[in-house]
């Protein structure tokens, strides 16, 4: 496997956030670890993942949510914590 583009990693992150919706909240580090596992640590590092997260957030595909800690979620998840 070769080094993926930032967008490819961002899309893989988005897919993960989408399939885990309602089951597990993911933090930035959970996404980073999952991408390193998926693409291999020779192809993806924390810096690249940081850029991918930035792209996800800046484009509005994902947002940060606070449920006792900061998680990355889909924009539609308008949940509140009591």
């Amino acid at each position, binding site marked *: 496997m070769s080094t993926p583009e930032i967008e490819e990693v961002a899309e893989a992150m988005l897919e993960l956030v989408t399939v885990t919706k309602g089951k597990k909240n993911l933090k930035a580090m959970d996404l980073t670890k999952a991408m390193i596992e998926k693409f291999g640590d020779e192809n993806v590092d924390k810096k690249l993942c940081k850029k991918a997260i930035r792209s996800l*957030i800046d484009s509005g595909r994902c947002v940060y949510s606070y449920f006792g800690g900061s998680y990355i979620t889909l924009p539609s998840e308008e949940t*509140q914590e009591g």
Partner: protein
Amino acid sequence: MATKDLKIPLLEELEKGPWPSFVTEIKKSADNPMARDTLRQLEKSYEDKISHWKHGGLVGVMGYGGGVIGRYSDSPEEFPEVKEFHTYRVNQPSGWFYNTEALRTLCDIWEKHGSGLTNMHGSTGDMIFLGSTTEAIEPCFADLTEAGFDLGGSGSDVRTPSCCVGPGRCEWACYDTLDACYDITQEFQDELHRPAFPYKFKFKFSGCPNDCVASIARSDMSVIGTWKDNIQINQDEVANYAKNGVDIEAEICELCPTKCISWNGKTISIDNSNCVKCMHCINVMPKALSPGKERGATILIGAKAPIIGGALLATVFVPFLEMEEGYEDLKELAEALWDFWGEYGKNRERIGEFIQRVGLANFLDEIGLEPIPEMIAHPRTNPYIFFEDELEEEDE
């Protein structure tokens, strides 16, 4: 007057006595419907003995993961004006230096977009703007940035760094706290606005061991000014203090924690190799004594206030660091800490708790620092650090 038909007898109890009252202050803003409903809802909380605020959820500005804390009323029909009552953290200037124009600008922005109520300042240091609707967040943020301000941190990110007034007003500053705080804030913008840690991470900068921002108790990375040469002494001024009634033996020598000062009735001498830089003698005789000339900072890691688990004081990691412009060593150390803690820290585990869990020796190993005697918090306790060279020598 807007408070006439406001029925808040329990809150008004808090106006009695000689001290300032937040109730009195909020009443002054009771023309604002949000401020008014804040008081009404709070009165109900006092009656019911339960908070009627809910917090969390999804509020903020585009691209940021912190800076606005979602807050809602659990009784929106009864208190419609505080149905949404979000809190903003606005990054304060280094050392909290404002001119009146800046303060007026901030207040005007907040009166336009929110309740007008502020809290100057929150315990992290930010200016706290209390109460706006969700709809008002983006326009308020636009006005703040237009005026040169930015949101601070919240959630699992770098919290807004803070510092003492340092060389801006204080002759004891051993480095430029204002510059270091500003530089670190700028450098770690990404970490401040995009939460990526297990939990919060605070930087606090104090210019000398008096530690006016309580960094040793309140920050994950505490940067405290210190010196490594001798305390500067003006013997004429020492004599003046004695002449003016200071009992040098009782008030200085006896209270020095390491008893390293002596007084012969005319002059004092200090055994600087035993001085632990507590600042006591300097605080008592500021005209006679001042920190040495070779100045820098001690870096301590891992303090926290008791929110989850008990309070922790910070541990020395670097006894002396020259605080040169650019602060490259400091930044490198912070990134090494985040790398390890970020990967293995549990959700809502502060770095001090993480160090306790994995053990200081393992932690140091991972971030590439050598153990040193200054890291031992209490003398003659087992630091659980084995010096490999010594072990190897003994094995041979």
